[in-house]
């Protein structure tokens, strides 16, 4: 029976990787109807596996489905990081912070909504839209002036954001009384806080959470992206820590008593279904693929390969980096929203900076500059660490689970020593295959020491 468990887990990992491969292949198919049918089928296969019962449990039980949801949100986060680091070369440790921002924002919107308070949605929604308008407007205005230093530009954006935030709160408060009667309360849900309306709010919450994370990343990235790569990395690590600190004090320093600070936010509706997880994951994959395959994508790659040369070609380094950073953070925010509504409980401990290395490990594992690698590694990583190792060590007596985090770094070390460029290097499959993407294999540090 124990061996059965083991084989079952290994087969599951294999099946999921094969499934992802199939999905990418179908998406890459030339005919539109094949794509559509393929995507629907890909959705249906997993959906069926969640529902069809064999023996006394479904083919993929809730343990597996939990892992699938975690892997799906991890895919979005890791893809965002791969865009920032793998494709654009900006070493960021801030992804985890944006993930946290997305999770808390989305959770707060739906939590308030089902508790008869529409201000979450209104304020964040209006704020994100106005914020985008403000950013574009100030950008336009500043572009007419010359020689405005980053710090000054940042000051303008900062004051702009504060203003936009205040306006959003005012509008939100004004509109709230009109909507909240339709929401009812947690005990008696009104017409708008259930059924299809709740699904729409969920969708909006996640999109707004992503946009909000993107806007924060714009504000933060604007000054910080001008730093050199490692310094940028440290500054973004600082960002993750600052976000974590704010989460811990969300009920004291920040005015969000429902987030309950270090106690953790409870009562988030568990709205993430396979449909939504699949939908958002696919959306992120498609957006990212299309960004990379566009001319913007070529600019992004050019900046990574050689900043000086890119600048000489007339590429606007700062805006390219900023754009990549914002898109990457948007993905992280989406991932956070999906995660929050899967787990139903948010605690600042989840967004600790140490866990923030996980997406980095996944991206490097899969191969920098390989979307396929990132997707496969996200699933592989969760299913290995939380699935296989947990099941295996669980079989080996009460002391064994302690070894989980001893084995994990050993595997990590071995893999890095054997394949420093990541599992898939820069290989892409199916849909993601791109003729012009030929990223360099090795980035030498010790300039040209040939034999070590």
């Amino acid at each position, binding site marked *: *029976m*124990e*061996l059965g*468990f*083991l084989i079952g887990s*290994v087969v599951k990992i294999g099946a999921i990787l094969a499934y992802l491969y199939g999905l990418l292949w179908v998406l890459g198919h030339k005919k539109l109807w094949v794509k559509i049918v393929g995507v629907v089928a890909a959705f249906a296969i997993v959906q069926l596996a969640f529902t069809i019962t064999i023996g*006394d*449990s479904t083919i993929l*039980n*809730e*343990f*597996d489905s*939990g*892992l699938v949801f*975690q892997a799906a949100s991890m895919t979005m986060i890791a893809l965002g990081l791969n865009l920032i680091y793998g494709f654009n070369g900006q070493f960021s440790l801030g992804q985890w912070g944006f993930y946290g921002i997305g999770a808390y924002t989305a959770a707060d919107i739906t939590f308030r909504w089902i508790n008869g308070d529409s201000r979450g949605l209104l304020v964040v929604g209006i704020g994100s839209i106005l914020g985008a308008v403000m950013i574009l407007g100030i950008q336009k205005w500043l572009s007419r002036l010359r020689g405005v230093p980053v710090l000054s530009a940042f000051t303008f954006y900062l004051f702009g954001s504060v203003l936009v935030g205040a306006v959003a709160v005012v509008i939100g408060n004004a509109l709230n009384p009109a909507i909240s009667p339709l929401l009812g309360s*947690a*005990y008696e849900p009104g017409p708008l806080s259930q059924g299809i309306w709740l699904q729409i709010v969920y969708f909006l919450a996640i999109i707004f959470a992503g946009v909000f994370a993107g806007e924060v990343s714009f504000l933060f990235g604007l000054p910080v992206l001008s730093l050199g790569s490692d310094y940028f990395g440290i500054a973004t690590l600082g960002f993750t820590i600052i976000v974590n600190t704010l989460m*811990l*004090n969300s009920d*004291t320093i920040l005015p969000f008593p429902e987030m309950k*600070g*270090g*106690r*953790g936010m*409870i*009562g988030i509706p568990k709205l993430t279904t396979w449909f939504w997880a699949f939908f958002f994951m696919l959306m992120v994959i498609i957006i990212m693929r299309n960004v990379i395959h566009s001319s913007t994508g070529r600019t992004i790659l050019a900046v990574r390969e050689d900043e000086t040369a890119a600048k000489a070609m007339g590429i606007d380094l700062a805006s390219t980096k900023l754009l990549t950073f914002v898109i990457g953070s948007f993905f992280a925010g989406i991932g956070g929203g999906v995660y929050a509504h899967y*787990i*139903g*409980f*948010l*605690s*600042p*401990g*989840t967004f600790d900076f140490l*866990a923030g290395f996980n997406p980095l490990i996944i991206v490097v594992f899969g191969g920098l500059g390989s979307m396929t690698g990132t997707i496969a590694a996200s699933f592989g990583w969760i299913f290995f660490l*939380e699935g*296989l190792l*947990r*099941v*295996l*060590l*669980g*079989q*080996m*007596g*009460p*002391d*064994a*689970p*302690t070894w*989980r*985090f001893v084995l994990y770094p050993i*595997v990590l070390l*071995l*893999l890095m020593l*054997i*394949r420093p460029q990541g*599992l*898939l290097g820069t*290989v892409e499959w199916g849909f993601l295959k791109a003729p012009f993407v030929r990223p360099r294999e090795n980035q030498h540090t010790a300039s040209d020491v040939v034999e070590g």
Partner: protein
Amino acid sequence: MRAFKVFGLLMVVVMVLSACAPAAAPAAGGAAAGGEIKIAILAPLSGPVPTFGLSTKEGATLAVKEWNDKGGVLGKKIVAIVEDSQCTPDPAVNAANKVINQDKVKYIVGEVCSKASIPVSEIANEKKVVQISGTSTNPSVVRDAAGKVKPFTFVACFNDDTQGKVIAKFAKENIKAKTAFIMLDQANDYVKGLAEYFEKYFTADGGTIVGKETYTSKDTDFSTVLAKIAEAKPDVVVLPDYYNIVNLVTKQAKEKGITAPFIGGDGWDSPDLDPKAADGGFFTNHYSPTEDREKVKTFVKNYGEAYKNDKGEPKTPDALAALAYDATNILIEAISKAGEDDATKVADTIAKGKFEAVSGSITFDEFHTPIKPVTVIAVKDGKVTFNSQVMP
């Protein structure tokens, strides 16, 4: 392609691991003759507080072992499945999902930390699995967002309210304190809860809080806070945190010449509490290993026989071990009383029953939280001794 080599390597790792698996398997699930009852123990074996996980695991497995030695329950052998839940929501949820869906477990002991117990409790109630946590004091563990009790979740410890009240009462009556200084960790719900309730009852009784300072759990240098305490000169300093923080704070306080006694909660309880540093302090607890009750004596003896510390001496069980032991015993006893391996019946039995446990005689209130006396323990002359028992 080189990628395949790596996959090959992964497979080899997996094979090696699987080679280990059958060897250890009989220990885990051997005698299936009379059937077996599985109990999952979720403990933070890694993560921020692995030491709590260790005590919990030891206490819970000791209880399981004792029942098995007596022939199991309902004629069936009890199998303990230990899972690492890291005191963090994600792994805890994965662990709970795994034991419920993969191992088909109907009873869960744990988690230790509230932030892990809360998401586990949601799954447990959804899946109608009995969960009993030894030590999660956050009210959200047993109550849902709307404030209703979760039918399948229990805790074996008194809650923050009770303990805060007793600390305040003791400070007022026994220490004769009029002014108090509160030190608390904003991010720790346990500490925050105790501090809040202490403040509530202490001020209601006419005491004054002369200062309130926060720190974080990762701090090691408390001299800034202590400098403020030295300025404020309170009658008592309330420090309702875990022993590791207590060790740091009290030691540094002695070096700063602070003479006010420190007082805290059950988090102080640990064989690693430095009694020299904490000398003159008091803390409330679920039980004292030096108590005279028969139940306590046998537990301390059995635990010491089963587990040794790094010098090879018998270990003294801390409150976490005792509570995990109690939680497991309550659970198994309830199974036995219910007479049936059925989660709903067992949950019912626990809610209504009365249990003789190491931490006193326990009945559960409407929020599945035990009603039991609180023990106050004094740290004096390098020793941790039973001081008094206070009914809240």
